[in-house]
């Protein structure tokens, strides 16, 4: 089991979600983050004060997948999130000891295999 953590541009999120959908990767978790890399810093100015914004808005994806899915997941992200401009982001692949699905208590492979019978919020 692997946990794939990707930092991408916010305006690439929809594209990445679509690409992952096509790659049949279903579950994932998203959070807004701020990144610092080689990007040009933004400068803001408030009354007499000038401010350099060192951090850029990014989006962080966290996707638990079984080994079989790692490659295509990474590929999907790389493909969809790339613009070629500095600031596109990074993908980290981490090993996971085990995964539990809270609803059913299933573990590992089972826990990340979609089972969309029934549906609720």
């Amino acid at each position, binding site marked *: 089991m692997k946990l794939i953590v990707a930092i991408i541009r916010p305006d690439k999120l*929809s594209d990445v979600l679509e690409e992952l959908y096509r790659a049949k990767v279903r579950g994932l978790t998203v959070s807004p983050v701020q990144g*610092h890399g080689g990007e040009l810093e933004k400068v*803001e100015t408030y009354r007499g004060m000038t401010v350099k914004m060192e951090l850029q808005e990014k989006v962080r994806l966290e996707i638990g997948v079984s080994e079989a899915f790692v490659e295509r997941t990474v590929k999907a992200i790389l493909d969809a999130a790339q613009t070629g401009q500095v600031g596109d982001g990074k993908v980290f692949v981490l090993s996971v000891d085990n995964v539990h699905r809270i609803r059913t208590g299933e573990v590992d492979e089972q826990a990340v295999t979609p089972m969309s019978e029934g549906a609720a919020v």
Partner: protein
Amino acid sequence: MALPVPMLLAVQEMPVEISGADTAWLLVSTALVLLMTPALGFFYGGLVRSKNILNTLMMSFASLGVVGVAWALLGYSLAFAPGSAWIGGTDYALLSGVGLSGAPAASTVPHVLFMAFQGTFAIITAALISGAVVERMRFGPYLVFIGLWSLVVYAPIAHWVWGGGWLGSLGALDFAGGTVVHVNAGIAAVVAALVVGARQDYGRRALLPHNVTYALLGAGLLWFGWFGFNGGSALGATETAALAFVNTMLAPAATLVMWMILDSLRDRKITAVGAATGIVVGLVAVTPAAGFIGPVAAIVLGAVAALPSYFIILYRSRTRLDDSLDVFAAHGVGGAAGAVLTGVLAAEVWGGAAGPMDGNTGLILTQIIAILGAAAYSAVATLVLLKVLGVFMPLRRTVAEEGVGLDVVLHGEEGYAKGEGAVLVRP
């Protein structure tokens, strides 16, 4: 604005004293209308994405400065100084001759106050257009545009209807600006949206309102301010002011009810954005009619006027026309619907002008002519203005900058700064 030209002339002949009551009400009304422009900023600002909130607000607030000054220096004269059927003269340029004695068009209130009251109309009309070009237009060209537009497009049309021009002489009824303000701005908005072009994400991404509460705040304050817009257009604390006021309360109430019914029929969900929109459409629609129709007619007018705007808003978002905040559907269509309905519902018994029920069956046609005349001029003049401007200064920034958001790129600020990762640059 309530008096037709001949009556105005009659009034002018006998010198009348400034009336404290009329002045008090026009003072209040002017303040109320001025407040509408910040209110519009919030109405619009709530509907854009948070990365463009300041730009959107500034498009309204800046009009208070740019158009406010332009109006005092020249616009008022072009609209209200004696001139031809097409445009006023320059007698009042730089406010010469605009003093504390009674205004020619409203002898019981100081001339200078009448000028200011009219100025608040010019300010908001220009700001209305911004709804069609938010989230993409450059700010410098926008400022130049609204300044010139207020002189070249707004002032002449105001003259046509209220300043002694051809539409007023024709007998067109426009109590507080259904045609001058709303049809005019709605058409200019379409032209501006076309010339400036659609947002890069338009039709491809979901562009969600970042703060619907601001849209409601704006709608609430607009309603409040609109009492000055319509009520103040009686130019005195008169029965007509009361009538215009009450209609400005009842018509939008009816539009709101109708809008909620339509929402609920369509999708079983009554939306807050819809409610805010419905209120504004009702206010727009009653504007030309306010002092000419009775309160029950106002309820009818408000309910009926909801329909065209409602469905055009639904339809517009499926087209390629990125009139982003539906200025055309709300103001252009709402204003035209109101102007036509004024031609149907005006009734002499309410102290204004004669309508079809009083035998003046030609009124509807006159109203349509006024709408078309104003729309045609607004379309052509706005197009020429923007095209010429575009030659001297690009109207947009790059696609990448649009992605970052105009607040940072154009204004060097964020609406809601968290402050994380912000480093002070020591001077």
